[in-house]
Protein backbone atom coordinates (compact mmCIF):
# COMPACT_ATOMS: atom_id res chain seq x y z
CA UNK A 1 0.00 0.00 0.00
CA UNK A 2 1.61 3.25 -1.15
CA UNK A 3 1.72 6.13 1.27
CA UNK A 4 0.78 9.66 0.20
CA UNK A 5 4.48 10.59 0.35
CA UNK A 6 5.48 7.74 -1.95
CA UNK A 7 2.57 8.47 -4.29
CA UNK A 8 3.66 12.11 -4.62
CA UNK A 9 7.20 11.05 -5.46
CA UNK A 10 8.97 11.23 -2.12
CA UNK A 11 11.99 13.44 -1.64
CA UNK A 12 12.25 14.36 -5.32
CA UNK A 13 8.74 15.79 -5.15
CA UNK A 14 9.61 17.81 -2.07
CA UNK A 15 12.72 19.20 -3.77
CA UNK A 16 10.70 20.23 -6.81
CA UNK A 17 8.16 21.95 -4.56
CA UNK A 18 10.50 23.78 -2.18
CA UNK A 19 11.86 26.42 -4.53
CA UNK A 20 8.44 27.08 -6.08
CA UNK A 21 6.75 27.37 -2.67
CA UNK A 22 9.52 29.54 -1.23
CA UNK A 23 9.33 31.96 -4.18
CA UNK A 24 5.59 32.27 -3.73
CA UNK A 25 5.76 33.10 -0.02
CA UNK A 26 8.55 35.63 -0.61
CA UNK A 27 6.30 37.45 -3.07
CA UNK A 28 3.15 37.25 -0.92
CA UNK A 29 2.82 40.52 1.02
CA UNK A 30 0.47 38.92 3.52
CA UNK A 31 3.20 36.68 4.91
CA UNK A 32 6.60 37.51 3.42
CA UNK A 33 7.65 39.43 6.53
CA UNK A 34 7.82 36.05 8.27
CA UNK A 35 9.91 34.43 5.54
CA UNK A 36 12.23 37.22 4.46
CA UNK A 37 15.44 36.24 6.13
CA UNK A 38 19.08 36.90 5.51
CA UNK A 39 19.72 33.19 5.84
CA UNK A 40 17.92 31.94 2.74
CA UNK A 41 19.66 28.58 2.77
CA UNK A 42 18.45 28.01 6.34
CA UNK A 43 14.93 29.10 5.41
CA UNK A 44 14.92 26.73 2.42
CA UNK A 45 15.81 23.86 4.74
CA UNK A 46 12.89 24.77 7.00
CA UNK A 47 10.60 24.84 3.96
CA UNK A 48 11.89 21.43 3.00
CA UNK A 49 11.20 20.06 6.46
CA UNK A 50 7.69 21.58 6.43
CA UNK A 51 6.86 20.21 2.99
CA UNK A 52 8.20 16.80 3.91
CA UNK A 53 5.86 16.77 6.86
CA UNK A 54 2.72 17.85 4.99
CA UNK A 55 3.49 15.39 2.17
CA UNK A 56 3.20 12.70 4.81
CA UNK A 57 6.94 12.08 4.76
CA UNK A 58 9.38 11.16 7.53
CA UNK A 59 9.73 13.74 10.27
CA UNK A 60 10.10 13.88 14.02
CA UNK A 61 8.25 17.10 14.73
CA UNK A 62 6.06 17.09 17.79
CA UNK A 63 3.28 19.55 18.57
CA UNK A 64 5.68 21.13 21.06
CA UNK A 65 8.28 21.65 18.31
CA UNK A 66 5.69 23.46 16.16
CA UNK A 67 4.72 25.72 19.07
CA UNK A 68 8.31 26.51 20.01
CA UNK A 69 9.24 27.07 16.38
CA UNK A 70 6.57 29.72 15.78
CA UNK A 71 6.24 31.37 19.21
CA UNK A 72 8.60 34.24 18.36
CA UNK A 73 6.62 35.34 15.26
CA UNK A 74 4.80 38.52 16.18
CA UNK A 75 1.18 38.93 15.24
CA UNK A 76 0.79 35.46 13.73
CA UNK A 77 -2.87 34.56 13.18
CA UNK A 78 -5.23 32.44 11.09
CA UNK A 79 -4.96 34.65 8.01
CA UNK A 80 -1.25 33.87 7.83
CA UNK A 81 -1.78 30.14 8.16
CA UNK A 82 -4.50 30.39 5.49
CA UNK A 83 -2.10 32.22 3.18
CA UNK A 84 0.61 29.58 3.63
CA UNK A 85 -1.86 26.78 2.84
CA UNK A 86 -3.07 28.75 -0.16
CA UNK A 87 0.48 29.09 -1.52
CA UNK A 88 1.05 25.42 -0.81
CA UNK A 89 -2.02 24.54 -2.88
CA UNK A 90 -0.91 26.78 -5.74
CA UNK A 91 2.54 25.14 -5.71
CA UNK A 92 1.04 21.67 -5.85
CA UNK A 93 -1.34 22.65 -8.65
CA UNK A 94 1.64 23.96 -10.62
CA UNK A 95 3.33 20.60 -10.15
CA UNK A 96 0.26 18.77 -11.45
CA UNK A 97 -0.71 17.11 -8.16
CA UNK A 98 -4.27 15.72 -8.14
CA UNK A 99 -6.94 17.76 -6.33
CA UNK A 100 -7.73 15.04 -3.80
CA UNK A 101 -4.05 14.79 -2.88
CA UNK A 102 -3.84 18.58 -2.55
CA UNK A 103 -6.80 18.38 -0.17
CA UNK A 104 -5.11 15.66 1.86
CA UNK A 105 -1.97 17.76 2.14
CA UNK A 106 -3.97 20.84 3.15
CA UNK A 107 -5.64 18.74 5.85
CA UNK A 108 -2.26 17.70 7.25
CA UNK A 109 -1.16 21.34 7.27
CA UNK A 110 -4.39 22.33 9.01
CA UNK A 111 -3.88 19.65 11.63
CA UNK A 112 -0.97 21.64 13.08
CA UNK A 113 -2.74 25.03 12.92
CA UNK A 114 -3.38 25.26 16.66
CA UNK A 115 0.20 24.27 17.48
CA UNK A 116 1.60 26.84 15.06
CA UNK A 117 -0.64 29.54 16.58
CA UNK A 118 0.08 28.31 20.11
CA UNK A 119 -3.52 27.99 21.20
Amino acid at each position, binding site marked *: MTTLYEKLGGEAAVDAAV*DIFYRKVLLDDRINQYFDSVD*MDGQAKKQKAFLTMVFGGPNNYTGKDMREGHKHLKGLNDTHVDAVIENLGATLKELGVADEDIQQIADIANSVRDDVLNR
Partner: protein
Amino acid sequence: MSVLHYDNNEIRLRDDQSVLDSLLDAGHAVPHSCKAGVCQTCMMQADDGPIPAIAQAGLKPTQVAAGYFLACRCYPKHTMHIRSVDQSQGQYTATVLDKRWLNATVLRLRLSCPDMTFHAGQYLTLWKDAEHGRSYSIASLPEDPYIELHLKIYDAGRVSGWAARTLETGDTVQLQGPLGTCFYTPDQPRQTLLLAGVGTGLAPLYGIVRDALAQGHTGHIHLFTASNDPAGLYYLDELTALADAYTNVQITAVVQSLIGNPPSAINDLVVGDLNQVLQKHYPDTKGCRIYLCGSTQRVKNLQRQCFLGGANMSDIYCDLFG
Protein backbone atom coordinates in the same frame (compact mmCIF):
# COMPACT_ATOMS: atom_id res chain seq x y z
CA MET B 1 30.96 -5.06 10.59
CA SER B 2 32.32 -1.62 9.67
CA VAL B 3 34.61 0.52 11.75
CA LEU B 4 34.35 4.27 12.09
CA HIS B 5 37.42 6.40 12.80
CA TYR B 6 36.41 9.67 14.44
CA ASP B 7 38.43 12.05 16.59
CA ASN B 8 41.09 9.44 17.37
CA ASN B 9 38.41 6.93 18.31
CA GLU B 10 37.51 3.66 16.71
CA ILE B 11 33.80 2.89 16.78
CA ARG B 12 32.28 -0.35 15.64
CA LEU B 13 29.13 0.01 13.60
CA ARG B 14 26.25 -2.41 13.57
CA ASP B 15 24.77 -2.98 10.11
CA ASP B 16 21.45 -1.47 11.15
CA GLN B 17 22.90 1.57 12.85
CA SER B 18 23.54 4.93 11.20
CA VAL B 19 26.80 6.79 11.68
CA LEU B 20 24.88 9.35 13.74
CA ASP B 21 23.37 6.79 16.13
CA SER B 22 26.70 4.99 16.45
CA LEU B 23 28.46 8.22 17.42
CA LEU B 24 25.69 9.21 19.83
CA ASP B 25 25.72 5.76 21.44
CA ALA B 26 29.48 6.01 21.87
CA GLY B 27 28.94 9.24 23.77
CA HIS B 28 29.89 11.83 21.14
CA ALA B 29 27.76 14.97 21.05
CA VAL B 30 27.04 15.24 17.34
CA PRO B 31 24.58 18.03 16.49
CA HIS B 32 21.42 16.65 14.92
CA SER B 33 17.68 17.27 14.69
CA CYS B 34 15.28 15.57 12.30
CA LYS B 35 17.13 12.25 11.86
CA ALA B 36 15.43 12.01 8.49
CA GLY B 37 18.04 13.47 6.14
CA VAL B 38 16.19 16.76 5.76
CA CYS B 39 17.53 19.39 8.15
CA GLN B 40 21.25 18.72 7.43
CA THR B 41 22.27 19.55 11.01
CA CYS B 42 24.21 16.28 11.28
CA MET B 43 26.46 17.12 8.31
CA MET B 44 29.93 15.60 8.67
CA GLN B 45 32.91 15.10 6.40
CA ALA B 46 34.59 11.90 5.28
CA ASP B 47 38.35 11.80 4.77
CA ASP B 48 38.10 8.49 2.98
CA GLY B 49 35.95 5.47 2.50
CA PRO B 50 33.19 5.25 -0.08
CA ILE B 51 30.22 7.30 1.02
CA PRO B 52 26.82 5.67 0.41
CA ALA B 53 24.95 7.76 -2.14
CA ILE B 54 21.85 8.20 0.00
CA ALA B 55 23.96 9.90 2.66
CA GLN B 56 24.86 12.62 0.14
CA ALA B 57 21.39 13.05 -1.36
CA GLY B 58 20.24 16.67 -1.20
CA LEU B 59 23.75 18.09 -0.85
CA LYS B 60 25.21 20.60 -3.28
CA PRO B 61 27.71 19.19 -5.80
CA THR B 62 30.45 21.15 -4.04
CA GLN B 63 29.58 19.54 -0.72
CA VAL B 64 29.55 16.11 -2.35
CA ALA B 65 32.96 16.82 -3.87
CA ALA B 66 34.28 17.86 -0.46
CA GLY B 67 33.17 14.54 1.04
CA TYR B 68 30.34 15.95 3.15
CA PHE B 69 27.53 13.60 4.11
CA LEU B 70 24.53 13.33 6.44
CA ALA B 71 25.39 11.12 9.42
CA CYS B 72 21.76 10.15 10.08
CA ARG B 73 21.45 8.61 6.62
CA CYS B 74 24.84 6.97 6.43
CA TYR B 75 24.97 3.19 6.81
CA PRO B 76 28.47 2.41 5.55
CA LYS B 77 29.53 -0.99 4.33
CA HIS B 78 33.21 -0.17 4.74
CA THR B 79 35.51 1.53 7.18
CA MET B 80 35.28 5.30 7.12
CA HIS B 81 37.47 8.06 8.50
CA ILE B 82 35.25 10.99 9.39
CA ARG B 83 35.38 14.35 11.10
CA SER B 84 33.13 17.20 12.13
CA VAL B 85 32.88 19.77 9.39
CA ASP B 86 34.39 22.69 11.27
CA GLN B 87 37.51 20.70 12.17
CA SER B 88 38.33 20.03 8.58
CA GLN B 89 41.08 22.60 8.17
CA GLY B 90 44.77 21.96 8.00
CA GLN B 91 47.60 24.20 9.16
CA TYR B 92 50.30 24.89 6.60
CA THR B 93 53.49 26.86 6.28
CA ALA B 94 53.71 28.74 2.99
CA THR B 95 56.43 30.84 1.38
CA VAL B 96 55.78 34.21 -0.22
CA LEU B 97 56.76 33.97 -3.89
CA ASP B 98 55.48 37.27 -5.17
CA LYS B 99 53.90 40.56 -4.04
CA ARG B 100 52.35 42.84 -6.63
CA TRP B 101 49.93 45.76 -6.46
CA LEU B 102 47.00 45.27 -8.84
CA ASN B 103 45.66 48.78 -8.22
CA ALA B 104 46.01 51.42 -5.51
CA THR B 105 44.42 49.26 -2.81
CA VAL B 106 44.59 45.63 -3.91
CA LEU B 107 47.73 43.60 -3.31
CA ARG B 108 48.27 40.25 -4.98
CA LEU B 109 50.12 37.62 -3.01
CA ARG B 110 51.42 34.44 -4.58
CA LEU B 111 52.38 31.80 -2.07
CA SER B 112 54.08 28.45 -2.40
CA CYS B 113 52.14 25.82 -0.46
CA PRO B 114 52.24 22.54 -2.33
CA ASP B 115 50.71 20.52 0.52
CA MET B 116 47.35 22.27 0.66
CA THR B 117 44.66 20.73 -1.52
CA PHE B 118 41.82 23.04 -2.44
CA HIS B 119 39.38 24.18 -5.13
CA ALA B 120 39.59 27.62 -6.72
CA GLY B 121 37.03 29.77 -4.90
CA GLN B 122 37.49 28.27 -1.44
CA TYR B 123 39.01 30.47 1.24
CA LEU B 124 41.83 30.17 3.73
CA THR B 125 43.03 32.11 6.76
CA LEU B 126 46.30 34.02 6.49
CA TRP B 127 47.82 34.32 9.97
CA LYS B 128 49.92 37.34 10.90
CA ASP B 129 50.62 35.85 14.32
CA ALA B 130 48.94 33.42 16.70
CA GLU B 131 46.03 35.78 17.36
CA HIS B 132 45.47 37.75 14.19
CA GLY B 133 44.39 36.27 10.91
CA ARG B 134 42.15 37.21 8.01
CA SER B 135 40.31 35.06 5.50
CA TYR B 136 41.01 35.41 1.81
CA SER B 137 39.52 33.57 -1.14
CA ILE B 138 41.76 31.57 -3.47
CA ALA B 139 42.03 33.03 -6.97
CA SER B 140 44.26 30.29 -8.42
CA LEU B 141 43.91 26.67 -9.48
CA PRO B 142 45.56 23.66 -7.82
CA GLU B 143 47.56 23.15 -11.02
CA ASP B 144 49.10 26.65 -10.78
CA PRO B 145 52.56 26.66 -9.12
CA TYR B 146 51.29 29.05 -6.44
CA ILE B 147 48.28 29.93 -4.32
CA GLU B 148 47.03 33.39 -5.27
CA LEU B 149 45.23 35.79 -2.97
CA HIS B 150 43.92 39.31 -3.61
CA LEU B 151 44.19 41.41 -0.45
CA LYS B 152 42.20 44.60 -0.05
CA ILE B 153 44.67 46.74 1.89
CA TYR B 154 43.48 49.01 4.68
CA ASP B 155 46.14 51.36 6.12
CA ALA B 156 45.02 50.57 9.63
CA GLY B 157 44.32 46.94 8.81
CA ARG B 158 46.14 44.69 11.25
CA VAL B 159 46.68 41.88 8.79
CA SER B 160 46.37 43.69 5.46
CA GLY B 161 48.62 46.54 6.69
CA TRP B 162 51.21 43.98 7.79
CA ALA B 163 50.99 42.17 4.47
CA ALA B 164 51.47 45.42 2.55
CA ARG B 165 54.28 46.93 4.63
CA THR B 166 56.13 44.11 6.38
CA LEU B 167 55.72 40.85 4.49
CA GLU B 168 58.47 40.19 1.94
CA THR B 169 59.20 37.68 -0.79
CA GLY B 170 60.87 34.67 0.76
CA ASP B 171 59.10 35.07 4.11
CA THR B 172 57.09 32.15 5.49
CA VAL B 173 53.49 32.56 6.63
CA GLN B 174 50.96 30.31 8.34
CA LEU B 175 47.87 29.31 6.40
CA GLN B 176 44.79 27.52 7.67
CA GLY B 177 42.17 25.96 5.45
CA PRO B 178 40.66 25.51 3.01
CA LEU B 179 37.02 26.11 3.77
CA GLY B 180 34.01 27.00 1.70
CA THR B 181 31.72 25.39 -0.82
CA CYS B 182 31.79 28.17 -3.39
CA PHE B 183 33.68 26.44 -6.19
CA TYR B 184 33.16 24.84 -9.60
CA THR B 185 32.01 21.28 -10.12
CA PRO B 186 31.87 19.74 -13.60
CA ASP B 187 28.46 18.04 -13.30
CA GLN B 188 26.65 20.45 -15.66
CA PRO B 189 29.13 21.47 -18.36
CA ARG B 190 26.54 23.23 -20.52
CA GLN B 191 24.89 25.22 -17.76
CA THR B 192 25.00 29.02 -17.95
CA LEU B 193 27.31 30.33 -15.22
CA LEU B 194 26.73 33.81 -13.83
CA LEU B 195 29.39 35.25 -11.57
CA ALA B 196 29.11 38.62 -9.80
CA GLY B 197 31.52 40.20 -7.36
CA VAL B 198 32.47 43.56 -5.89
CA GLY B 199 36.07 44.68 -5.48
CA THR B 200 38.27 41.79 -4.39
CA GLY B 201 35.19 39.61 -4.74
CA LEU B 202 36.75 39.08 -8.15
CA ALA B 203 39.38 36.82 -6.58
CA PRO B 204 37.35 33.62 -6.11
CA LEU B 205 35.29 34.30 -9.23
CA TYR B 206 38.41 34.63 -11.38
CA GLY B 207 39.59 31.28 -10.04
CA ILE B 208 36.19 29.67 -10.61
CA VAL B 209 36.02 30.88 -14.22
CA ARG B 210 39.50 29.53 -15.00
CA ASP B 211 38.62 26.29 -13.20
CA ALA B 212 35.42 25.89 -15.21
CA LEU B 213 37.29 26.47 -18.48
CA ALA B 214 40.08 24.08 -17.48
CA GLN B 215 37.44 21.42 -16.81
CA GLY B 216 35.88 21.92 -20.22
CA HIS B 217 32.81 23.97 -19.38
CA THR B 218 31.05 24.81 -22.65
CA GLY B 219 28.03 26.71 -21.32
CA HIS B 220 27.94 30.50 -21.38
CA ILE B 221 30.08 32.07 -18.64
CA HIS B 222 29.31 35.70 -17.79
CA LEU B 223 31.40 37.44 -15.15
CA PHE B 224 30.38 40.80 -13.67
CA THR B 225 33.18 42.60 -11.82
CA ALA B 226 32.03 45.70 -9.94
CA SER B 227 33.49 48.63 -8.07
CA ASN B 228 32.49 52.12 -6.96
CA ASP B 229 34.70 53.60 -9.65
CA PRO B 230 37.13 52.38 -12.33
CA ALA B 231 40.11 52.81 -9.99
CA GLY B 232 38.76 49.95 -7.87
CA LEU B 233 38.73 47.51 -10.79
CA TYR B 234 41.73 45.33 -11.60
CA TYR B 235 42.83 42.39 -13.78
CA LEU B 236 40.99 43.96 -16.73
CA ASP B 237 43.69 42.86 -19.19
CA GLU B 238 43.56 39.30 -17.84
CA LEU B 239 39.76 39.25 -18.04
CA THR B 240 39.76 40.63 -21.58
CA ALA B 241 42.29 37.98 -22.55
CA LEU B 242 39.96 35.26 -21.23
CA ALA B 243 37.03 36.67 -23.18
CA ASP B 244 39.19 36.82 -26.31
CA ALA B 245 40.44 33.26 -25.90
CA TYR B 246 37.09 31.62 -25.14
CA THR B 247 33.94 32.34 -27.18
CA ASN B 248 31.69 31.31 -24.28
CA VAL B 249 33.18 33.84 -21.87
CA GLN B 250 31.76 37.34 -21.43
CA ILE B 251 33.05 40.00 -19.04
CA THR B 252 31.13 43.06 -17.87
CA ALA B 253 32.74 45.66 -15.62
CA VAL B 254 30.28 47.72 -13.56
CA VAL B 255 31.04 51.00 -11.81
CA GLN B 256 28.77 53.28 -9.79
CA SER B 257 30.40 56.35 -11.29
CA LEU B 258 33.10 57.49 -13.69
CA ILE B 259 33.82 60.71 -11.82
CA GLY B 260 37.50 61.56 -11.55
CA ASN B 261 38.75 58.53 -13.43
CA PRO B 262 39.87 58.03 -17.00
CA PRO B 263 38.06 55.46 -19.15
CA SER B 264 39.40 51.99 -18.50
CA ALA B 265 40.78 49.36 -20.80
CA ILE B 266 37.81 47.06 -20.81
CA ASN B 267 35.35 47.05 -23.73
CA ASP B 268 32.19 46.43 -21.78
CA LEU B 269 32.13 49.01 -18.98
CA VAL B 270 28.70 49.82 -17.59
CA VAL B 271 27.81 52.62 -15.19
CA GLY B 272 25.18 51.59 -12.67
CA ASP B 273 24.43 49.45 -9.66
CA LEU B 274 25.60 45.84 -9.92
CA ASN B 275 22.27 44.37 -8.79
CA GLN B 276 20.29 46.39 -11.31
CA VAL B 277 22.76 45.62 -14.11
CA LEU B 278 22.57 41.91 -13.37
CA GLN B 279 18.78 42.08 -13.23
CA LYS B 280 18.67 43.84 -16.59
CA HIS B 281 20.99 41.31 -18.28
CA TYR B 282 19.39 38.27 -16.64
CA PRO B 283 15.82 38.90 -15.50
CA ASP B 284 15.26 35.16 -15.95
CA THR B 285 17.86 33.09 -14.11
CA LYS B 286 16.10 29.75 -14.44
CA GLY B 287 18.59 26.96 -15.06
CA CYS B 288 21.62 29.11 -14.27
CA ARG B 289 24.34 28.36 -11.76
CA ILE B 290 25.30 31.51 -9.89
CA TYR B 291 28.37 32.50 -7.90
CA LEU B 292 28.19 35.65 -5.77
CA CYS B 293 31.00 37.32 -3.84
CA GLY B 294 31.08 40.50 -1.81
CA SER B 295 29.69 42.02 1.37
CA THR B 296 26.98 40.08 3.21
CA GLN B 297 24.37 42.71 2.40
CA ARG B 298 25.22 42.77 -1.30
CA VAL B 299 25.42 39.00 -1.71
CA LYS B 300 22.20 38.34 0.19
CA ASN B 301 20.33 40.84 -2.00
CA LEU B 302 21.79 39.26 -5.14
CA GLN B 303 20.92 35.79 -3.87
CA ARG B 304 17.32 36.81 -3.30
CA GLN B 305 17.13 38.54 -6.67
CA CYS B 306 18.56 35.57 -8.56
CA PHE B 307 16.35 33.10 -6.70
CA LEU B 308 13.20 35.07 -7.49
CA GLY B 309 14.41 35.22 -11.10
CA GLY B 310 14.01 31.44 -11.26
CA ALA B 311 17.37 29.94 -10.25
CA ASN B 312 17.28 26.97 -7.89
CA MET B 313 18.37 27.77 -4.35
CA SER B 314 20.83 24.90 -4.62
CA ASP B 315 22.41 26.47 -7.72
CA ILE B 316 23.30 29.75 -5.99
CA TYR B 317 26.72 29.81 -4.29
CA CYS B 318 27.62 32.64 -1.92
CA ASP B 319 31.05 33.72 -0.68
CA LEU B 320 30.49 36.34 2.03
CA PHE B 321 33.17 38.88 2.82
CA GLY B 322 31.39 40.06 5.96
